[in-house]
């Protein structure tokens, strides 16, 4: 029962926020406005959805903003010459950086926050190399030809939303109905027990990091498509909000507890809070302050302290 209530707190918070802002500014509830808001949130959700798996393991991935920036550069630089191949290379590069993080964590036994910080540095270098250290523009023709799935619209709804929904459904199935999903949950709750029962924990972790890198890569591609350019610093402000989405949605950093739909709700909360702050007159710069505090608070609330003997 207590857990049910805990599950619903983020949803309730989302509704409260939405109605709060609607009371402040009635135009907010117009369907087209809500759809735009959701579309704007999708890149953040894509980025956060992959990290959800890593956080559920009890690990963290700090390389996602670097990965997203890198894939935006790769797509922008390669599209004119290679077309669809550019997309494949970008997504593969995202997955590959996740693979690198996972291998470093597994085989060098380096804690994930340092491993991914380091991989993030390497990935940023790759981004600068791919983009020749500047912003690379994506021409309108290339955009129409290859990125319509991300920026066009279908049945009157922006394709970002469709992309986000597809990711939501696929990842939810992956987490809730597959062996891999169950393993992620198990490793997050009781890693030693899982090791003791003879399951290859390393493979589960590796897969989760690959997934996180892939989704961050996808987020970078969509971000680049939306902005019409790729740049090595494109996603630099996204790490904190992305982790905030996961935690605010109710996934605990101690691992074991969480869901992809929670991250979806978390992403909407982050977006609505951002809009709300703009309405109240908080500048973009000051929003970072609020997100920093929200992150700390959300971690404090969702963390399962019985699991860690000493908090370092």
């Amino acid at each position, binding site marked *: 029962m207590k857990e049910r209530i805990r599950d619903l707190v983020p949803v309730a918070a989302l509704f409260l926020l939405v109605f709060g802002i609607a009371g402040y500014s009635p135009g907010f509830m117009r369907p087209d406005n809500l759809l735009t808001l959701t579309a704007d949130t999708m890149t953040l959700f894509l980025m956060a959805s992959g990290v959800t798996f890593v956080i559920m*393991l*009890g*690990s*963290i991935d700090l390389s996602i903003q670097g990965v997203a920036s890198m894939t935006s550069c790769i797509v922008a630089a390669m599209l004119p010459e290679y077309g669809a191949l550019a997309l494949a290379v970008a997504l593969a590069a995202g997955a590959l950086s996740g693979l690198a993080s996972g291998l*470093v*964590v*597994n085989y*060098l*036994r*380096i*804690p*994930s*926050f*340092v*491993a991914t*910080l*380091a*991989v*993030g*540095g*390497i990935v*940023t*270098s*790759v981004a*600068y*190399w791919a983009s020749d*250290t500047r912003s690379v523009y994506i021409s309108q023709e290339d955009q129409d030809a290859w990125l319509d799935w991300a920026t066009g619209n279908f049945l009157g709804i922006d394709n970002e939303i469709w992309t986000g929904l597809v990711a939501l459904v696929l990842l939810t199935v992956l987490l809730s109905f597959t062996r891999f999903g169950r393993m992620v949950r198990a490793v997050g709750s009781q*890693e*030693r027990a899982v*090791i003791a029962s003879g399951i290859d924990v390393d493979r589960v972790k590796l897969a989760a990091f690959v997934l996180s890198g892939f989704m961050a890569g996808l987020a970078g591609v969509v971000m680049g498509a939306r902005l019409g350019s790729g740049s*090595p610093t494109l996603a630099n402000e996204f790490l*904190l909000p992305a*982790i905030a989405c996961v935690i605010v949605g109710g996934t605990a*950093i101690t*691992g074991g507890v969480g869901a992809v739909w929670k991250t979806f709700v978390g992403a909407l909360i982050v977006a609505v809070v951002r809009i709300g702050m703009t309405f109240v007159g908080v*500048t973009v*710069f*000051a*929003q*970072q*302050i*609020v*997100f*920093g*505090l929200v*992150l*700390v608070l959300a*971690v*404090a609330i969702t*963390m399962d*302290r019985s699991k*860690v*003997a*000493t*908090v*370092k």
Partner: protein
Amino acid sequence: MKLRAFAPIAVLVLLCLMIAVFSPNFLSVSNAIRILNAAAIPMVLVMGATFVILMGSIDLSVEGVVSLTAVVTASLVQNNLTSADLGYWAVPIAMLAGGAIGAVNGATHVLMRIPSFMATLGIGFVCLGISTAALGGFPVRIADREFRNITLGRTFDIPHGVYIALAAVIVAYIIQQRTRLGRWVYAIGTDETTARQSGVPVERTRILVFALAGIFSGLAGALAAAQLGQGHGLIASGRLFTTVTAVVVGGTALSGGVGSVLNSVVGVLIVVVLTNGMVLMGVPPFVQQGVQGLLIIVAVSLALDRRLLSVVK
């Protein structure tokens, strides 16, 4: 064990030899001064970070604290935005401000019982937010030429920033070797439970150490402001990465308990010499972050005592 202790110095010497072979300019007095000058601010930063990492924690708020204290410093000396003119007094105030933020880091981490990397990640972003929001995204320019001498001025051809960094190292070394705080840091890093049972005030020490790290970051912020003649939200970008790299490359273990501020001195020199060497050899600057990333991975995997780690998160 003995061998491992000397590994960082051996790496530094080898690195210098290799670069000297490829680029004769490396072994000149002017280049040595350039290296020392580039090492000054990172040196101050790692002094604080070392204590935090010795406890097995981490401080990811470095960039936030440095940029905020740089903004504080720049707005307290003669500048283009405020009417303040405190001159050198801006430095102790920046250090106090840094110490206060560090104490908030520590208190958040200890009292709310959340891991330090999350607490400092959040607070670091808060600081970055404050320093950009307070200025609306614009820099504060320092008009006080005299003040800028604290890093730029030279005595015996060596920039003052280098002397300040040296003083910071001495202070940190004394704290590490001669005070109870220093011994408690090692005790907590080695085994927190045992430390607690033998009467070490774990909570207080943790908060104090984060405050200490904040003071060093505050000093670094003041130095950065004086060096660049301004304060703004992005003044510290890249500092966190260099700091963590330097500490772990120097041989201080992220698991806590093993290492020393002297290790970190060597670590900073390795990172700075490597950067300097890459510039001399014409390697594009953007490769440096990647090389530092690789360095972190190699150094940490060499320094980790794997017997202690059955589960790595």
